[in-house]
């Protein structure tokens, strides 16, 4: 930093304010990165929870029994058909009024629940599509070989389907990561909330630059990891 400043004297006039801004941006980094932890934790926890829920929803939607498939379809319809922001408000503000026992004090937990429930609906569709993309002929072959439905699912369908799920799940994860910025509206200190605080307290709109940069870096890292995973798993094709 010292070296950078001593360099400033020898630079053209327009470089001065630029360096000054750069210096401020770097100064904001620690508090931004701290808030980033919340963003990351919320994204990862939500997607992991949603995945578990989505497996059941997907299998339920595929089920031939209407008593199982209809409620699952209704769930997906509801959570894909209403805005995520509204769902967040509903869980944080409305639910405690309806059922006092469900008063979620922690903003983080409320956000986690809202995101997990919402993302599960999208992941369920991804999982269902991947399962149903497996060629029907293989299912017939498995049946002709005497496998039960559950064996066919476990030994034939899922080992192939989960590889096909990885690119769309990666996509969904990146979307969730960006959508978590919505939680700033219920004053949960995520990266977006912290950015807004700095912007208003320091009266500097410059803070949006490092904030977006952080989002971009996280997205890039996760996309890279998912790409590697996808390559590794597609050996037989």
């Amino acid at each position: 930093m010292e070296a950078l400043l001593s360099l400033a004297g020898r630079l053209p006039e327009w470089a001065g304010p630029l360096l000054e801004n750069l210096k401020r941006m770097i100064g904001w980094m620690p508090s931004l990165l701290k808030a980033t932890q919340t963003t990351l934790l919320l994204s990862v926890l939500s997607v992991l929870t949603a995945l578990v829920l989505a497996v059941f929803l997907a299998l339920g939607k595929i089920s031939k029994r209407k008593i199982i498939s209809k409620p699952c379809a209704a769930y997906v319809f509801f959570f894909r058909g209403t805005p995520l922001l509204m769902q967040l408000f509903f869980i944080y503000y409305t639910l405690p009024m309806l059922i006092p026992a469900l008063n979620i004090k922690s903003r983080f937990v409320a956000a986690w629940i809202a995101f997990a429930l919402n993302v599960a609906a999208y992941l369920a569709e991804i999982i269902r599509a991947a399962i149903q993309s497996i060629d029907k002929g293989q299912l017939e072959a498995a049946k002709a070989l005497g496998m039960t439905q559950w064996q066919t699912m476990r030994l034939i369908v899922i080992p192939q389907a989960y590889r096909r799920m990885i690119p769309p799940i990666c996509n969904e994860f990146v979307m969730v990561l960006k959508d978590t910025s919505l939680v700033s509206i219920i004053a949960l200190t995520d990266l977006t909330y912290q950015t807004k605080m700095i912007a208003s307290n320091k009266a500097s709109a410059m803070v949006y630059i490092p904030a977006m940069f952080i989002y971009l870096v996280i997205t890039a890292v996760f996309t890279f990891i998912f790409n590697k995973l996808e390559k590794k798993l597609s050996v037989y094709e």
Partner: protein
Amino acid sequence: MSMIRTENLCKSFHSLEVLKDVSLTVEPGEVVCIVGPSGAGKSTYLRSLNGLETINSGKIWIDDVLIEDRDKGSHVNKVKMPKQQRLAILLELGMVFQRFNLFPHLTALQNIMIAQTKVRKRGEAEAREKAESLLRRVGLSDKINEYPSKLSGGQQQRLAIARALAMDPKVMLFDEPTSALDPELVGEVLNVMKKLAEDGMTMIVVTHEMAFAADAADRVVFMADGVIVEQSPPSEFFTNPKNDRLRDFLRRTLRKEE
């Protein structure tokens, strides 16, 4: 004693009647080829034997055990038997499909082992030994660790035959096994089937390969519009057809082959 017996099998898809009172008996060791124009119900007949299609009415015996008995109109199977028992009887039928239907995420060896270990509950070593000997039998010993996508169509179909044989079926059902193959690959699959027939396997083969039917079949069945029109030994079937439709069919298909 019959290996497979069907009586008055009926099957329709919505309003389309695909099988109309099809009755056929296949003796142990017999090789029966079913030929006929597309849409005749040949594949549907084959698929209803092992439950891939559910018949609307009729009776099916496998190895003299009645497994399907449905009345016209009610469509309910009157045969009540535990699921496990039914499964065990259906395992006497092995099936080979037009499009091979191999498991693409498993190697050749694993394709043959998976049902042996998970359905027949054989040990790893026993299943592996069986798989290796079957791969040798169909001439694929050098492809043991290849994935299906690395095999030619003919090799894939031979692998599919080995996979079905691994379950020790008493009857092999072939559903147009060479229709999806390039012409130069048809021979290798037919050769494996011919050897199988010579070894005494009971076989029902739906096919368009008239030369194979003439050569390997004990009896050839002509199906059209969901009914069996004519059946006779190949010598008679091809040289002295009685039915006009069969004559017409033979004239058209045999001309195409020349």
